[in-house]
């Protein structure tokens, strides 16, 4: 971005540095304020809290415990150990269930929605529409569809003479139900990102390929996917993070059941911090999960995101 030419001479730069303009800071100030208030400050305050046995309603009993809240997470004999790792492995299981459909189906949808046909705009709206709902609406809707007594799915299955599974009270039914609800609810976001990226790919590439005799499948694998690579990594990363933050759907659809099988790590943090008022411990868990996600993201970019060609 540096301009080439005489202005790059050393004295001029120094002079420019001395004269700091307030304007750029004013431009970023609104964002910075909200970022500080709602992200940076809570994050650092969370680290602070995690070093105490902390209950915001009992300032008189708030002993400093150092790293104990973190050490507990690795001590099999401690109170939170079993539940925390159960939550973490449940979250991992959900990531395995959800990330592939959330990315794969979104990509296919985006390709379909990128073609030229009448009513394309309507379909784009329809597929994006669920994303605008709140987690409560989406979850309760799918709870009704999957619930065992008079739910839509099981009524249909019974109607065609099948013995329907107990979706929400059994494994893997509970994960399937939660995954379907989540895909239906959030797929629109990934689709839109893919769609925008698809529109950036020059038409001439496809024209050239079709002249060379490539069929549509080859065009998809050899042009679309490579051209989408950086967007794919981005979508994969945000989907991973979103899936790791799963809370509302099991909270409303399964209550964390059957037998805490869908109690995710965020759900567990909620129970520890809000229901059991062990906020220091909940903060430590959050920080640990954040670090875990950070390293996952790093690996993601390292293995899939290398952009040597560019």
């Amino acid at each position: 971005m540096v301009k080439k030419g005489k202005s790059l001479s050393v004295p001029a730069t120094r002079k420019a540095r001395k004269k700091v303009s307030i304007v750029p800071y004013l431009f970023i100030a609104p964002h910075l304020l909200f970022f500080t208030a709602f992200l940076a400050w809570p994050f650092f305050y969370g680290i602070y809290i995690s070093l105490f046995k902390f209950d915001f309603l009992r300032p008189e009993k708030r002993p400093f415990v150092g790293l104990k809240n973190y050490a507990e997470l690795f001590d099999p004999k401690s109170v939170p150990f079993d539940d925390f790792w159960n939550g973490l492995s449940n979250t991992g299981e959900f990531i395995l269930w959800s990330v592939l459909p959330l990315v794969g189906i979104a990509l296919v949808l985006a390709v379909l929605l990128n073609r030229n046909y009448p009513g394309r705009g309507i379909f784009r709206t329809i597929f994006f529409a669920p994303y605008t709902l709140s987690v409560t609406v989406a979850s309760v809707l799918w709870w009704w569809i999957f619930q065992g007594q008079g739910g839509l799915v099981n009524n249909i299955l019974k109607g065609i003479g099948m013995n329907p599974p107990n979706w929400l009270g059994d494994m893997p039914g509970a994960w399937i139900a939660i995954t379907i609800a989540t895909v239906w609810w959030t797929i629109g976001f990934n689709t839109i990102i893919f769609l925008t990226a698809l529109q950036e790919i020059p038409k001439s590439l496809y024209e050239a390929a079709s002249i060379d005799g490539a069929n549509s499948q080859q065009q998809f694998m050899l042009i679309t996917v490579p051209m989408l690579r950086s967007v794919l990594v981005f979508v994969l990363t945000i989907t991973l993070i979103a899936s790791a933050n799963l809370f509302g759907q099991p909270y409303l659809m399964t209550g964390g059941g059957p037998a805490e099988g869908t109690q995710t790590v965020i759900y567990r943090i909620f129970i520890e911090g809000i229901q059991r008022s062990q906020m220091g411990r909940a903060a430590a868990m959050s920080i640990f999960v954040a670090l875990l996600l950070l390293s996952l993201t790093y690996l993601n970019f390292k293995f899939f995101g290398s952009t040597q060609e560019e």
Partner: protein
Amino acid sequence: MKSITRYLLPLIVIFSMLITACGGTATEAPAATESVETQPPSQATEVSAGGTSECPAGVEGTTIEMWSPFTGPDGDEMTALAERFSSENPCGITVTHVAQPEYQQKLEAAAAAGGLPSMTAVHATRIAALVSRNVLKPFGPEAMAVFGDDFGSDFPEGLWSVGEIKGARYSIPLDVHPLIMFYNKDLFEKAGIEVPGKEPWTREQFEDALAKLEASKVTPLTLGNAFQAAALFQALIRQYGGSLTDAAGVTATYNSEAGVKALEKIKELKDKYSPEIAGTGDPEVNAFKQGNVGMTFHGPWWISDLEKLEFVGFAPLPTIGDSPATWGGSHHLALTTEDSTTQAAAAVWIKWLSDNSSGWAAAGQVPARQSVRDDPNLASVAGPISQVAESANMVALPTQAAGLEGALWDQFGPAIDTYLAGDVTDAQAALDEANAKSQQVMEENIETYGD
């Protein structure tokens, strides 16, 4: 860099001040509008129905804001009662009722931000934690004087005593919500079963009914898991003579012989008489509503819905084990202000509400007071509740200790579900493991909240 901080710091400070300022007004604003809306008509001087006690000094013109977790139709009932009191009481006290969703969080946030109302309805099992966490305030002498000396003798002992902590009174029981039986009158008649009365069935009556229902080729009962199974477990462990903890609430004891019997009995009933039902959202009751199930067990909050179905009858939980007992929760009324005049005014309202709790029974709750339950009027105001009113004497609330219910339920709940699903087959081992975990959590709670 310095210049950045020079602008940034003041901006952040100003911004955070703005946020706190907004927070303050936001919590106060609804209160103000509510009280305007429900101002009593000044000409209302008709004689009160409930026989109000004399007015404590200085309460004239006091406004009591009461919060509650009653977000359903029961909330409208409470609001109507508050309005009736506001217009009828001779002391010039106005009560505004605000039902709060996500109640616990709202109350705690308000406590932290200094925006607490005057009083609140709370679950009995949460009183100890809310006291330790400085949310609830004890009733002062002015407030206690309103109730008189032997007010407590009209409540079941276990219900009254949970409101007392370290010699101070923190709450007045309002109601009980016990695990009760819903039954299908039509199917009972067809099977030749005599409909249950106000006393709980004996074990023989219960087993006889199951056999007759089975013989008449209908589903005898529906048993699910989650809440229903956990509540039934707590009822049965007492029916078999056991309890969840020792009397002091410091040792978990539900892996006792009675606990194992209770768990095995639920599994037996479920496997033998119930279709496969599991999951949240009370599927066992939804199945019962379809009209081809003999009976099920659940809470009285279902009454207002089930009442609309002609075929549904209500009765106390049958004796399935050795002696009658049931699980139950209880709403209490507690103060969140220390101001003695406001406390006294709140006490006048609490006493009126308690005297008139047959009105509250219409919302689907069993009145806590014996005299109200014995009142023949109850049957006309709330028929189903009068059918199950005896349950109030069958309930034993857990010992009042901070976080105790969670320490127990969060462990035996999943253990019960796992066992009922058939994933483990040794009831004793399942309960042993859960019991040990409960013990560990209870010890942590004692360390956190004890002196």
